[in-house]
C-alpha cells in the first residue's frame, strides 16, 4: 500500500502554532493509517490505498480547517516521488556548493510555460529558480533575510498556493522512508 508524505503549508507561521500530536490526530481522524510526523514543520507521513490523491488532499484540508480553524493547503507526494525529488539536481553542483540554501516548493499541479517564466522573473544576484513538474527550486546564495523573494507574491502571480521546504528536509525524508520508495 502506498506511503504518502503530506506537506502542509504555513502550519507554524504567524499567529499559528500546531503540535505534531494535533496533526497526527487530525490525519487519523480522516481514516489514514501508520501516521507519523517528520520534524516539526508540517510533514505528515501515512499509508493510504487511495487512487485519487487530489481528493484525499481536499479531505485532509477540510479536516485540518475544521480542527485548527484556518485553511491549511496540503500537497501530497508518494515516498517514491519524495525520493525522486531528493535525487533531482536543479542546479550545477558548483552553484549548489556556493549557495546558502536550496529550497523546494510544492505545487498541486505542474507549472505551465507561463508560470515557469513568472518564476524565473524573480531571479536576482541572490536568488535563482528552476521548475520541474509540480516542484519549484529556489537557490538562495545569501542568507534568506537578504533575499527579496516573496513566496506570497509568487503565489498571487501564479494563482497557485505552494509550500516550501529546505532540500535537507527532503533528503532526510527520502533517507528515512527508502523502503517504501517503490510505491
Amino acid at each position: 500500500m502506498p506511503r504518502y508524505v503530506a506537506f502542509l503549508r504555513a502550519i507554524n507561521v504567524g499567529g499559528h502554532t500546531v503540535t505534531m500530536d494535533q496533526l497526527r490526530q487530525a490525519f487519523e481522524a480522516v481514516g489514514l493509517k501508520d501516521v507519523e510526523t517528520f520534524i516539526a514543520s508540517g510533514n505528515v507521513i501515512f499509508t493510504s490505498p487511495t487512487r485519487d490523491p487530489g481528493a484525499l488532499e481536499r479531505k485532509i484540508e477540510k479536516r485540518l480547517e475544521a480542527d485548527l480553524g484556518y485553511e491549511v493547503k496540503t500537497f501530497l507526494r508518494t515516498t517514491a516521488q519524495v525520493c525522486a525529488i531528493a535525487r533531482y539536481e536543479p542546479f550545477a553542483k558548483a552553484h549548489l556548493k556556493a549557495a546558502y540554501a536550496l529550497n523546494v516548493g510544492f505545487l498541486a499541479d505542474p507549472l505551465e510555460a507561463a508560470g515557469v517564466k513568472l518564476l524565473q522573473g524573480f531571479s536576482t544576484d541572490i536568488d535563482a529558480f528552476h521548475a520541474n513538474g509540480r516542484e519549484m527550486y529556489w537557490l538562495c546564495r545569501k542568507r534568506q533575510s537578504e533575499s527579496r523573494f516573496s513566496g506570497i507574491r509568487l503565489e498571487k502571480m501564479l494563482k497557485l498556493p505552494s509550500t516550501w521546504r529546505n532540500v535537507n528536509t527532503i533528503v532526510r525524508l527520502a533517507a528515512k522512508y527508502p523502503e517504501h520508495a517503490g510505491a
Partner: protein
Amino acid sequence: MGFMGGLFIIILAGIVADSLVKIVKHRAGTPRLRADLEDLRHQLDDQANRLTDALASPSRPRRGTFTGKMIRSIRAVVTLLVAAGCHRTQSTQSREVSIRGYGPIEAGMTVGEAEKAVGRAFDRSEALEGGCHMVRLAGDSGTGPLFMVVDGKIARVDVTAPGIQTSHTVAVGDDEAKIAKVYPERITVSPHKYSEGHYVTVGPRTEADSGFELVFETDSQRVTRYRAGRLPEVEWVEGCS
C-alpha cells in the same frame, strides 16, 4: 570595641563579602540568588540583634552605641545589595528574550544544560535526542515559549503570544515600527514567505553574538511572532525546515 564586638564585626564582614560574591556570581548567570540573599538578610538581622543586646549592657554603653551604629550601617549596605540582587533576580524570572535565547537558556546548550540553567524540565512526551523538535517547558501553556531542539541542542526559541518581551521590550502585538526604533541600524526587512507581512531581522550588536539573530514576523503592521537563536535555524521559515 573588645573581643566580642570585634568577633561580630568579622562575622558581619564575612557575611557582606559572601553577599558580594553571590551577587557577582548572579551577574554571571548563577541562579537561586533571591533565596540566598533572603537567607543572608535573616542571618544579618539575627547577628545584629544579638550583638546589640550583648553590647547594650550598662558597663559599656558608649562602645555598644558605636558598634551598634556600625552594624546598622553594614546592614543598610547589605539591604541595598539584597534589593539590587532581588531586582536582578526578578527581571531574570520574567525571562526576557535576547539574541541568544530565553532567560538563562541559550542556543547551543544541550537539553540537559538548558534544563539545569532554567531549573525546569522540558516536556518529554516526544523524544528530543535526534532530529528537530519544537518543545515547551513542562507545565507551560500553549502561550509559553517554544524551543527548537536540533540533534539534542537548543537552536532557537519562538514566542507566539503576547506577554514575553525581548530585552529591548518588543513583544507580540507591538508595532513593526517599534523594532526599528529600539534596534536602530541592526535590522533587515525582507518579505514574508507566506503572508503580506515581513521578516524583520535584528543582527548581532557584538562580535561575540555573531551567528545569532532575532527574527520578528509581522503582518506588515504588528509583530505576530518572533524567534531568537543561532543561524541557520533562526531563519528557517516553516518550523524545522
